[in-house]
């Protein structure tokens, strides 16, 4: 598998990357780990005329605590997220999701920003980013803007990101009582269905819940009916079961392919919602 020809350049800073994107007039694509883009290029499903490499821009890499939030640079690889002690203690769901992406080699190269920008409907990160209410920090010709995760994922492979913009980082308030559960597609190990859930618990009662699904539809999305069903309820087997049982009911378009029919995918949303919530609950009491 051999891609079509392209020009390659390296950006030295975010500003430089934005300037290069602008100069290319839409012909260029950014590349960091390349683990979403290169496979598509090899299959000639993507044929960019120019690649701008942002993998080595120092400001794009690393995991930092910023006040009570955690900031992850867009070019941070999945392995670093999966094994970060900070993430492991403060936001174990994120480490758990990162550790389930692809395989070890993919996790050594693939990046958070790349996964979000590509927004594969079966990618793991989007569900997690949604339930963390993360903000996505983007720099473009007009300067920096901040997009809420809730409005970032628009449609199939479509996000709120202009071709001349660069995702710089993702920022979120870490939460321990959260879980991610995933039904693996047995060949690619993408998610047939993946559900992330965050529980805000006080005195055994769910103050609020945040639940999102990936793999099921055109793009990752929140399951607001589940969130509503949990809010204000005592946290127990019954409330989790009841809330999970309606998961996916409001999802209009559900994917179907050789691995899973629409009916099966729909049925798996409650199953994995329950598993994610149970993990969140277990972590809340730990």
């Amino acid at each position: 598998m051999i891609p079509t020809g392209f020009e390659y350049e390296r950006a030295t800073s975010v500003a430089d990357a934005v300037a290069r994107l602008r100069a290319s007039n839409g012909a260029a694509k950014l590349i960091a780990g390349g683990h979403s883009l290169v496979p598509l290029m090899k299959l000639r499903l993507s044929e960019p005329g120019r690649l701008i490499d942002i993998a080595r821009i120092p400001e794009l890499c690393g995991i930092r605590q910023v006040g009570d939030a955690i900031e992850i640079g867009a070019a941070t690889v999945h392995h670093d997220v999966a094994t970060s002690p900070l993430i492991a203690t403060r936001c174990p769901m994120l480490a758990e999701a990162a550790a389930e992406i692809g395989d070890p080699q993919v996790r050594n190269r693939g990046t958070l920003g790349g996964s979000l920008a590509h927004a594969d409907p079966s990618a793991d990160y989007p569900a997690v980013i949604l339930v963390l209410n993360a903000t996505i920090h983007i720099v473009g010709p007009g300067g920096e803007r901040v997009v809420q995760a809730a409005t970032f994922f628009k449609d199939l492979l479509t996000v709120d990101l202009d071709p001349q913009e660069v995702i710089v980082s993702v920022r979120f308030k870490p939460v321990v009582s959260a879980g991610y559960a995933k039904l693996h597609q047995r060949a690619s190990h993408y998610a047939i269905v993946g559900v992330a859930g965050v529980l805000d618990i006080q005195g055994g009662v769910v103050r609020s819940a945040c639940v999102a699904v990936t793999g099921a539809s055109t793009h990752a999305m929140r399951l607001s009916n589940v969130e509503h069903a949990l809010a204000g309820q005592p946290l127990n087997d019954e409330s989790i079961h009841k809330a999970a049982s309606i998961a996916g009911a409001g999802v209009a378009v559900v994917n179907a392919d050789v691995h899973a029919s629409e009916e099966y995918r729909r049925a798996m949303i409650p199953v994995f919602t329950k598993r994610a919530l149970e993990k969140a609950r277990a972590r809340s009491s730990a």
Partner: protein
Amino acid sequence: MATTHVLPKLVGQRIKRREDPRLIQGRGTYVDDVKIVGMQHIAFKRSDIAHGRIRRLDVSVAKALEGVEAVFTGAQLAELIRPMPIGTPFPSPTHRAIAVDVVRYVGEAVAVVVARDRYVARDAVDAIVVEYEPLPAVVDLERAMTGQPAVIHADFPNNIALPQIASGTGVDASGKADDTKIDQAFAAADVVISQRMVNQRLVPNAMEPRGVVAHYEPGKGSLTMWSSTQNPHILRSMVAGMLGLGESQVRAIAPEVGGGFGAKINIYAEEYVAAAVSKALGLPVKWIEERTEAFVATTHGRDILGYVDLAATKDGKVLGLKLRLIADIGAYNMLLTAAIPTLTMLMANATYDIPAIRATLVEVFTNKTPTDAYRGAGRPEATYFVERAMDMLAAELRIDPAEVRRRNFIPSDKFPYATQMGAVYDSGDYEKALDVALAAAGWEALKAERDAARKQGRLVGLGLSMYVEVCGVGPSASLPTGGWEHAQVTVERDGRITAATGASPHGQGNETTFAQMLADQFGVPLEHVTILHGDTAVVKQGIGTFGSRSQAVGGTALVMAGARVKAKMAKFAGPLLEAHEADLVFENGIISVKGLPTSGKSFKDVASYAYVPVPLPEGLEPGLSEEAFFEPKNNTYPFGCHISMVEVDRQTGEPRLLKLVAVDDAGTLINPLIVEGQIHGGLAQGIGQALIEEAVYDEQGQLLTGSFMDYAMPRATDFPRFELQAMVTPTPVNPLGAKGVGEAGTLGSTPCLVAATVDALREFGVKHIDMSLRPEKLWRIIQGGRA
């Protein structure tokens, strides 16, 4: 006087492989590692539709690209080479290496590009424009048999590639059938099990895709080919025939070959095309298959539909078996395609003494990639159909699956046992294999464990499967390529041994096992033996490695040649030691007179003497090099018993293999370490078939599982530790007693996993589930539907 250093006997020892030092350091030479000055790369434009007439084929832009040497269409190629030959005596439609007017499966080549490098070649392929008039795609097997929705080859009405053939009880040599006995068996039955079963289509997926380098040297008029093949000698013969060259003008080399699993037996269009293009252009060319290309261009395996009827008494004694087979062979017959399902017929007895059996077979064309051998090749299908039926019988009669089998085994005192299907089982003790497996697995304890798990609401099941297979394939009457193997053994002047074998190992470790045998035979250190293979210029003749035959047939040829050299060497040593040659022993690097170990001459000195024989003993020629062809009188029939425990996730339907116990009897073992590796690999492929592997086509004939993104390959995380136990019942068919083991793992594991899964789901009333056991399929059963 030679110093004595006692050498251990090597046969039967767990010897580390001699192949490995080069492979673990990345120093092996696979076909893509071969480079020749001036070498061009070739790439194929392939059909992206399943069935259609080529209306326009424009290669002009491709031809004009910088770096493109040439482009050949099917019509141009047809002037250079003959239609593709097959290796079976069945009728076959005309098959051009590159399609000329009609394409019949996704992946069939329509043009070939020759270019400076693989990058340019790929660009040129993309620049070729093809327009097709689409024809209806023939995908559904049973509909295909009615000629619907289209006829693929005009001279094969209703897409019937092979009209029904029959064998078994009441069928005479001409194929004429008398139904009396089979009808009586079914009439007398208390219970009849009837089930339609699909043994699904698989993609072999050797980790090294295919590849070929062809180098025609115009000045010499000869062709050298490196190919990722299991049988270089067959490649040589067939390429020579296709190009109109003599076999002496073609040298075929199988360098390091990265797995074959049956799919590299066939001689492929790309090999003929590379040879033809090299000859036409006078340039060396290389073709390396890409994985997504391999999914459609390399033969698939299995894909046999079976209608199984089993008649039995209420005590579980089987009275009769009907096996109606319909094989989906894809768009064309390849080298052995037509013969593979006949092996399913041959093995319809399985391990059982069944009074009346009838097997029939029809082979059908569809617009899919052609099928051919895949690890097990016809035997796993037979095992699967019969073992699943035995499980259904056990369930119907509420008899333990082990017990129902026990009541039907061919008794151990009946070997050799001639089956109604025409096989003569050489040796066996099936009940013992069952007992060893039951003990190794702790069958009764496992049942208790399963029942306890069920009480907790878990879906846990147990499965058991017997198998017997055909290995060590020969004689020539049973193998169209020739049922023998060849070997040459030379004791060099310095006492080192060089042996050439016609077997062509590609992972089986014969450089080690063969050396173990020869080292023992000559009483020399292992390091003094070198095994050569895979080059027709080095190995005079050969058949190749497939059908688990290398050890049983190739190994025997080797020790036969070895014995001849040894006998001659004794004739040289006799006069030196003033002893009769019959009194000599070869041990510890010394040839000595029996009972007088210190009297000997070193092996090396005798070897040197044989090459400078002064004086030359009366009646002897100088030199120590002999060869042998070994053709066995019969196949070998290894057997065994596999037991598995499976748990199904009640919510998702995901099956998980918890335990697998395998008892395999491959006859005498040369190297148990290597044997275990062979069994492990076979198990993985058998389990893969049961659980996750499946070539799925849509209604348009597109392969939906056409890459590793969608075709699930077993990974390390899919398996528990396999628990193996060996049993040894030597075969009388060859002097080694070895039966062969390469394919064994794929036979028992597949039905035993399906049985375990059906058992796990038995509370839902399911009796059989077709493979693969996809989570959704199992989930639907749990939801109350049917598979």
